């Protein structure tokens, strides 16, 4: 049965690429305004799940809704309400940060003045002012990630799907990014799905987590409750305990 109050509701979702099962019978839900941790090793199926939520790849089984909208039937509606930062991406090298934000804003058919105002606000919020009119070609990893996050926020999304957003960032950049995400959830009620294999980031940011392993969901719930259940103190120990139990 679907959870109508959840921001994201995933029911027995599955995806096969030929003989390879990328996501197998995954179910979880995310509450509105929550920062939800989505953990797992590389290739566990996190990215494919996020891509299915945005309609970028079609599920082969199961169903899911984002803000009550079906991810297959109402794909464009879902995208209108969502922001997405993929794990692997590049920014158009010949555009400036400001031009790129305006370009992305135009994809939402928002009024140009509103897009300009939001772009200015995001540039200021992420400290990109000095570089806003420079070509994106020479941007550092941290700056690129800031522009990446800014483009995901240009439509003031209700749901933010972030795929490995902290990988490649230095400690300061990571700290800043996590602060931004906290502020978004706290001040604006944005629901954040934070996919990562960096366990300390998930531990810092999330109250509830889902853990994927070899395409299957092996745990989902409150972090504190999971720690109690497995009698472990740290996130690393919890993850190892979950994986070992699954392997056994």
């Amino acid at each position, binding site marked *: 049965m679907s959870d109508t109050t959840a921001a994201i509701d995933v029911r027995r979702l599955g995806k096969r690429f030929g003989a390879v099962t990328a996501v197998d019978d995954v179910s979880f839900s995310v509450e509105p305004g929550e920062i939800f941790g989505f953990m797992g090793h590389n290739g566990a199926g996190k990215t494919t799940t996020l891509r299915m939520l945005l309609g970028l790849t079609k599920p082969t089984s199961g169903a899911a809704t984002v803000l009550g909208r079906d991810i297959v039937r109402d794909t*464009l509606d879902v995208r209108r309400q969502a922001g997405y930062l993929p794990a692997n991406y590049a920014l158009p090298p010949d555009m400036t940060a400001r031009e790129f934000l305006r370009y*992305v804003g135009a994809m939402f058919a928002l009024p140009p003045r509103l897009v300009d105002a939001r772009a200015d606000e995001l540039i200021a919020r992420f400290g990109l002012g000095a570089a806003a009119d420079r070509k994106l070609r020479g941007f550092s990893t941290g700056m690129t990630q800031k522009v990446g996050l800014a483009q995901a926020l240009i439509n003031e999304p209700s749901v933010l799907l972030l795929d490995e957003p902290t990988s490649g960032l230095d400690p300061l950049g990571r700290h800043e990014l996590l602060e931004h995400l906290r502020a978004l959830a706290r001040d604006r009620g944005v629901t954040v799905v934070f996919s990562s294999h960096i366990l300390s980031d998930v531990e810092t940011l999330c109250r509830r987590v889902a853990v994927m392993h070899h395409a299957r969901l092996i745990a989902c719930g409150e972090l504190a409750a999971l720690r109690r259940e497995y009698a472990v103190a740290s996130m690393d120990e919890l993850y190892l305990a979950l994986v070992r139990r699954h392997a056994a």
Partner: protein
Amino acid sequence: MMRLLWLDYRAAMRERKTWLAGAMLVYAVLSIPVVLAQPPPHVREAIAAWFHDADPFVVFMFVWIDLAMNKAIAFLPVVLASTVLLRERDTGVLAILAAKPLSLARYFVVRTGSACAVMATLHVGSQLLGALWFPGQVENFRPGVFLAAMSLHLFAAVCATACAATLAVATGRRGASALLSLMIFGILVGMALVGFYQPAWQTATLANPFTLGALSLGHLGALGPGVLLPPMLALTALTVITIAAGARLAGRMEA
């Protein structure tokens, strides 16, 4: 979508390759009168026989279309459009853009529309420059007829750009799409004026968009809507069908 199209067009117009393409067209405008300063008698006679008109302006129009503009619309659309969506996909930009509330099919239409607009800007710009430069250089030059004839050619340029974009999403590989477009356009340009040389084949050659774009060559003495509108409509229909086919193929692409 119009706003996005406008932003895309502006970004494309600022690219170095667009400026270089513009410079090449300026070179064509400046060099063709020099090439045509003293055409030998056998050239004048042959062109007069094909187009039933011995006016030096007809010789000029033949060379301008055959030597300059047909070559331009065989090469420039490939440079402008045979990378549509594939470049974004291969460089990783599409990973971001595909997650926006604009389907890949519609995004293809925007990108192709923008490439067509850039091609049209380059084409119109070079004809306007020509209309200013040629009167002092070409004997009996008629700016009105020149612009009317080249307005039809513009439709062929836009159609070629749409074809290059659709071939891009059909092949799925940048190098292959450019090579295939160049080969197809090379053959079509080579065959573009065959209908004038061999009137028995004229009907068959009308299937070639480059022939449609050059049809005004046979009616320079009486160029009017009756001559220009049917090929313009045919080229518009072909362009729309081509873009629709490309959009359908783009919709099947995985970001």
